[in-house]
C-alpha cells in the first residue's frame, strides 16, 4: 500500500524500550514525569499497572513493555511516565505510559520517514504510524491512540 509520508512530519518525543527507539508526537503529550508511586488495581490486565495521582487527577498507567509483550522490567531512576491526552467518544481522557527512558524532542522530516512495514494481515500493527531514520537509528513512530483498543480504553476509563 502507499501512504503519504508527509502527513507524519512534525515534532516527536523519542523514548526507549529495551534497546529500541520509539517516537510519539508531542501534540498528544500532556507531560513527562519520573515514575511516581502507583496504586495497584485488582482484576485488570497485566499491562495495566494501576493509577497515579497527577495534581489531583486520577490517571491510569500502562506498562508499554508488557503491552508490547516484551520482558518485564524492574523500574529504575530512568524509568519515566509519558502522560498522553486523547479523545474517547468526544471526551478528553488521559493515560500514563511507562517507558524505559525518555530521550529528546526531535523534528522528523518527511524524507526521514518510511511507511510502516506490513507483516501480513493477521498481524495488528496499525498503532505504528511509520518508521523514521534519525542519526542512523530507526525510530518507530507510534500512534499512541491506537495502542489500546477502544474496549481496553473504556475498561480503563471505567476503573
Amino acid at each position, binding site marked *: 500500500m502507499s501512504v503519504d509520508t508527509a502527513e507524519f512530519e512534525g*515534532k516527536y*518525543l523519542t523514548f526507549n524500550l529495551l534497546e529500541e527507539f520509539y517516537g510519539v508526537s*508531542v*501534540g498528544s*503529550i500532556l*507531560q*513527562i*514525569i*519520573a515514575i511516581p508511586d502507583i496504586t495497584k488495581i485488582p482484576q485488570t490486565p497485566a499491562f495495566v499497572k494501576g493509577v497515579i495521582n497527577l495534581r489531583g487527577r486520577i490517571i491510569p498507567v500502562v506498562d508499554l513493555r508488557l503491552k508490547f509483550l516484551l520482558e518485564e522490567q524492574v523500574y529504575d*531512576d*530512568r524509568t*519515566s511516565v509519558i502522560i498522553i491526552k486523547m479523545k474517547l467518544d468526544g471526551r478528553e481522557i488521559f493515560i500514563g505510559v511507562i517507558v524505559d527512558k*525518555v530521550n*529528546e*524532542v526531535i523534528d522528523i522530516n518527511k524524507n526521514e520517514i518510511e511507511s510502516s512495514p506490513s507483516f501480513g494481515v493477521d498481524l495488528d500493527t496499525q498503532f505504528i504510524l511509520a518508521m523514521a531514520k534519525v542519526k542512523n537509528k530507526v525510530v518507530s513512530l507510534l500512534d499512541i491512540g491506537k495502542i489500546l483498543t477502544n474496549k481496553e480504553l473504556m475498561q480503563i476509563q471505567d476503573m
Partner: protein
Amino acid sequence: MKLNMKISLLFGIALFVCIVGIVIPVEMILNRNFEKTYLDKLDIIATSNADLIKTNLDAELNRLFEIANRTESRTLDWEGVIRENLIPDVQRIGAQEMGMVFPDGRYRHISEVPDANLNLGDRDYVQVALTGRNAVSDLIISRVTNSLVLMYAAPIMSHNGPGARVIGMIVARRDGNLALIDLVNNARTMEGSYAFMINNSGTIVAHPDRDMVFNQVNVISEAANNPDYRSKADMVSVALNSRSGNARFTEDGKKYIAAYTEITGYPWKLFFTLDEDVMNSELAQVRNTILVIGFIFLVLGVIVAIAFARMISKPIHECLDIARNIENGNTNLNINVKSKDELGDLAKAMQNMVNAIQRVLSDCDYLTKEAFAGKLKTRIDVKKHQNDYAKLVDGMNNILESVAYPMKECLDVMDRLSKKDLTARIINKYPGDFDFLMQNINNAGNTLEEAITQVELAVEQITSASNEITAGSQNLANSTSQQASSLEEISSSLEEINSLTANNADNAKAGLKLADQAVRSVDSSNESMEKMNKAMEAILKSSQETGKIIKTIEDIAFQTNLLALNAAVEAAHAGDAGKGFAVVAEEVKNLALRSAEAAKNTNALIDESSRNSEMGAKIVEQVTKSFIEMKEHFNKVKSIVNEISASSDEQASGVGQISTGVNEMNRGTQQNAANAEESASAAEELNSQADELKDMVESFTLSRKFSNMSNNTAFRKTHNLPNERRKTHAQLPNKKPTNALEIMPETMLPMDSFDEDFI
C-alpha cells in the same frame, strides 16, 4: 702397848681400887646416919614449935580471961555496960567479933542482928568454959557468919578467989582460916620442910594449902576415897594414939619423913615434914664432894705414874730408835743417854756397835768411790777391822782385783781400734760375764770392720749414682725450659682468645641495642599504620557521602532533563512562537545530560576510590601483621643476642680461669727448673762428699776378709738398715712409720693444688 702406857695404866688401876675401897664404906656409914640426923632435927623443930604455939594460945586466952573478969564484965549488963566496954578490945586482941554467953547458953555479941536469939549452950567450948576453965573451940562453922571460925571462951567468975562460980563467959571469934595457919606459918622450919596441924578426929586445921583448911579435909576419911592420902592417913592414925613420934609417908608421888607432937592442953597435933629429895640432895652433895676429891687424887696419881714411866722408857726408846735406824741402813747416829744404871750400859754398847759398822761402811764407801773414779789399784787395810768385818773388806778387795785384769786387755784392744787398726782382737779367755764382754768387744771389732768395708763399696755406688743424678737433673732442666716456652705460647694464645671473646661480647651488646631500636621503630611504624588505616576508613566514609551527593546530582539532572523535555513539548505545542523557547529547552536538556554524564563519571571515580581504600585497608592490615611478626622476630633476635652475650661472658671467665691455671703451671715449671738446678748442684756436692768419704775409708787398716763379698750382698746389707729401723719404729706405738714412698706425696703437694686449679 707402849711400856710407859702399861706402867701408867697399872699404877692408875691400883690407885682407883684404893680410892673406891675407901669411898664405898664411907658412903654407907654416911647414908645410915644422915636420916637419923634429919629425923632428930625434925623432932626438935616440932617440939619447940608446939611449945611456941601453946604459949601463944595460952597468952591469948589469959588476955580474954582478964577481960572477962573485969568489974564491968561481972555486972552481966550486956546492953548497958559490957557491949560498949568490949568494942575497943576487938581490935586490940585481933578478933573478928566479941560477945557474951549467959549460963543458959544465950549469946549476945557486938554487931548482932536484933532478935537473933542465938544459943551456944550446946557448943563444947561453951560447956568447958562453964566449968571455969578457959576454952578454945575446934575449927567450926559459925552460927552467925556461916564461915570457918575459931572461938575463944573465958569464964566470968562471980569473984576472985576460991569458991567462985561461973556467972557467964566472954567469947572472941577469930577467922578459922587464919588463926592456926598464922601460928603454924610462924613456926621456924628448914628448907624442903612444911608444917601442918590436925585435930583429934584427923581433920586438917592448919596447912600451907589453905583450901585444905577451908574444906575441912579429914585425912583419914579422905583416904577411903583417895588412895593418894592412904600413906598420910596411916601416919595420922598412928599419931592420934601417941603423944609424939617419927614417921614416913608418901604424898603426890614424893617421899617424906615427918616428926609429930601434941600441943599440950589443946586438941591438936603438929606435924613437921621433910621432902626426902631435899635430904637426899644434901646427901648427894656430900657424896659428890668425896668423889671429886677421890678423882683429883686419882688424876694426880696417874700424872705421877706417867712421869715415872717416862723416866724408865725414855732410854729404852732411844736404844729402839738406834736399832731401827741400823735396820734401815742409817748409821750416822749418836746416843744421848746419861744414866748410870743398866740402861746406860745398854746405850754405851749400842754406841760401840754403831761405830764399828760406821768404820766398815766408810772404808767400803771409799773403795767404791775410788773404783768409780777409775782408780782400780786402791785397796782397804784389812787389819783395821775384826773378824767378820775383816772378811767382808777382804772380799771387796778381791772383787776389784777380778775386774782390773780383763779391763787392761780391753783397754789395749780399744786403743788399737781407736787408732783405726780394725784388726785388733782380745786373745785371752776370761770366765763368766767377762767372757761375754770380751766376745762382744771382738764382735764389735768385726762389725766395725765389716761396716767400713761396706761403706767402701757403698761410696763407690754413691759416686756412680750421683753422676747419674747430675745427668738426670740436666735433662730435667732442659725439658722444663721447653715446657716453659710452650706455656708461654699457650698464655699468649689465651690472651688473644680473651680479647676476641671480649670483642664478641661487645658486639653482642651492640647487636642487642640495635635489636632494641628495631623493635622500637617497628612499634612506631605500627602506630603509623594504624593512623593510616583510620585515614583510609575516613576516605571511604567521605567517598560514600560523596556518592550520595552524586546520586542527588543525578536525580536533579534527570529531573532537569524531564523538565527540558516537557519544555520542549510545550514549545512544540506553541508552534512557531515556541521555537526560541525550544532552543533554550534543548540547551537545558544538554546541560542536564552533561551534568548527568559528569555525575556518572564522578560516581565511577568515587567507586574506584572506595575500592582502592578498601584494598588499602587490607594491605595495611597485612603490613601490620607483618610488622608484628617482625617484632616477634626481633625479640627472638634479642634473646639470642642476649644468650650470645652471656655465653661470651662465661667464655671470658673460663678463659680467665684457664689463664690463671696456665700461670700456676708456669710458676710450677719455674719451680721445677730451679729444683732441677738445685738437684744438679746437690748431686755434684754429693759426688765431692763421696770422694772425701772414700779417702776417709781408705785411711782404715782392714784385714780384707770381708771385701770378697758381692755387690748384691752389699746391697742387701745396706737395705737391711731401713728394715731394722722400721722394726724399731713398729715397737713405738705412737709413731707413724715413715719411708721414702710415703714422703713422696707430701713433696708433691704443690702439684696437687695445681691440678685442682686446672680442674
